[in-house]
């Protein structure tokens, strides 16, 4: 089963390479990976979905946490987290009499039609990965489907400082940030 990992990393060159490197050097396939900056522009958040055996998950989190650029790593697999994905789906070769049905299906899934042409529709849908899978399965009945998916984004339901599961690295406290090494002048 897939492991869902949420990371806070320094927003600098090489951060993605290091995190991906920890996974690839151990032979784990990355199913999806999203990365973008946070409210603090010096930090990026990453969500990774990877095929990692259950017994290796704690170790993997620790190995990622060990990276100097990683501020926080949390395993959200078993936890109460909101997980969402965005997909753009293009459906073509729809029989003229079925076009309105496609629009109806889209409505059921709360997908928006973002582009319309005589030959195809393009839909935008967000939701859990399972919901998107279901919509795609359904649309296959109406025509040829092309799609691009964002990969999962996840967020714990609780504020970060109240998470019930182990946090392998907390935000440095005020006291800790003050003890950051400073070069002594000679």
């Amino acid at each position, binding site marked *: 089963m897939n492991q869902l990992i949420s990371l806070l*990393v*320094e927003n600098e*060159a*090489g951060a993605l*390479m*290091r995190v991906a*490197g920890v996974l690839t*050097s151990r032979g784990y396939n990355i199913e999806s990976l999203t990365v973008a900056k946070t409210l603090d522009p010096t930090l990026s958040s990453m969500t990774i979905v990877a095929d990692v055996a259950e017994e290796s998950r*704690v*170790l993997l989190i*620790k*190995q990622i*946490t*060990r*990276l*100097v*650029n*990683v*501020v926080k790593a949390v395993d959200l697999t078993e936890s109460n987290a909101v997980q969402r994905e965005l997909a753009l789906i293009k459906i073509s070769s729809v029989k003229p009499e079925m076009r309105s049905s496609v629009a109806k299906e889209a409505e059921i899934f709360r997908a928006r039609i973002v582009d319309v042409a005589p030959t195809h529709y393009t839909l935008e849908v967000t939701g859990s990965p399972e919901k998107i899978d279901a919509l795609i399965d359904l649309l296959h009945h109406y025509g040829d489907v092309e799609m691009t998916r964002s990969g999962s984004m996840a967020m714990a339901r609780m504020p970060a400082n109240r998470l019930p599961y182990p946090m*392998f*690295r907390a*935000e*440095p406290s005020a006291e*800790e*940030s003050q003890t*950051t*090494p*400073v*070069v*002594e*002048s*000679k």
Partner: protein
Amino acid sequence: MALMNGARILIESLAREGAEVVFGYPGGVTIPVYDVLYDHNLRHILVRHEENAAFAAQGFARATGKVGVCMATSGPGATNLTTGLVDALMDSIPIVAITGQVPQSLIGRDAFQEADTFGITRAATKHNYLVKNIEDLSQVIHEAFYIAGSGRPGPVLVDITKDVLLAKTNFHMSDKLKPLRGYELKLDPDQAEVDEAVDFLWEAERPCIYAGGGIISAAAHEEVVKLSELLGAPLVHTVMGHGCMPPEHPNYVSMLGMHGGYAANMCISRCDSIIGVGVRFDDRVTGRLDRFAPEARVLHIDIDPVEINKNRRADVGVVGDAKRALAAINKRLEETQAQKSTENMKARTAWHGKVMDWQAEHPYSYEPSDVEIKPQYLMETINKFSKGEAIVTVDVGQHQMWAAQYIKFNSPRLWQSSSGLGSMGFGIPSGMGAKVACPDKLVFSISGDGGFMMSLPEVATVVGNNIPLKMIIMNNGWLGMVRQWQDLFFDKRYSEVDMQPGFPDIPMLAASFGIKGVTVRKPADLEAAIQEMIDEPGPFLLNVMVTREENVYPMVPAGGALDEMILGSQKPVATGD
């Protein structure tokens, strides 16, 4: 405040961090750095191959505990460093490597001597940097030293583009540093973990302290000896752990693992409580993991949380600096000694006796010869001269294991071995670094005839810088360890291991380098030759022809359980009267 170019800021920053010597090799993009070094008082030693610059920096770091420094140019210079970086990563040795990079305007255009050093060394370092802005340089160097030397030590590489080396800016001795918010050190153990550890320890009836390189890094040798004394627990150590306890100590057993002593392997296999300190339950230590120490509960103390539960599940894990963790545990043990120590004392005493009986029945042993020099006899003789006080650096293979078995070390930081990565060609350059770091110490490097040829160019560095390194070649004419496996597991089909063809005449080779060299073949001549080597004020090459087909025993075959040792010539000796 002064206007300086990047090259000078680099050198001033290295000096500020306390660098004493840089092992390096110049090239196109690092010429500005060497221009600064031309009349700077920071010492630079010109090696003959960049890999050996990294090994020499390690030699310096392993001997002193300080951060070693090496430097190479872009492209091939950087790729040549890589083996030495991975080696330092595997053995947790603090070094900072500086590499030049092509100018930013050429990056990504397959420029001459361009390589993606930052990408290539991602998995070879604890952390690495690509400096593209001169304003970052001074701070990056500070961070690099801090990261290399703190926590679990390791190599840090700083790749600097040529345009940064040439740009100018104001250099401040004390730059403001941004916090390393992703790099948190946990040095002090949690009190709850300490209490749990102490309960664990008092419950032990058959304890075994399994001590590793983390004790050397943390200078926790006194604390581990004290722990052993408080519990009356026998101590076994890894190849990295040499020197953590004086070998004459009544609780000292020996090295454990694939070629460890019989008693050490039996001790950890039969114990009920493993106390692992600064170790990683490496496959060369545990043998077949699922059959390793089946009855033992595990207390694992390490500064790196990744190590806890990585290979062997720990019943109690303590994350912290080995010195602080052991001090806290010892303190608590002493406080609770009165009511607790008697409970399992009898069982622990009996267990200690049993381990020492194993030790007496199965010491390291071999068939002596007065015709040929047995490799074990060579190591015993070196031990006689080193008296547990000399620095000994080794290469990789049979001689490494015999040296680890027969040479004793009374204190930490005397033994240097490429233990995790097992890089041949390590002995001479690391010995060079050690001798530069400790000019008053006697330093032997021991190489096999295979590894010697890999590090041969560094003889020129040793001679050129008049580093009085005592270089010993244990010459059996083979890649002996590969041959041993071919002997035992491949029907003696000795494929591509014969190193005799083309091996140079050592006295002539030494003469051509302008130093003394001797070849010995007879056991009777060995002591005199070693004495001559020590008496010689300068470097010396001693080529010792040893028995060709000799195997290292005990040996745990790959994939075997640790208590299934091939004893070979290690015959039990009679005990008692």
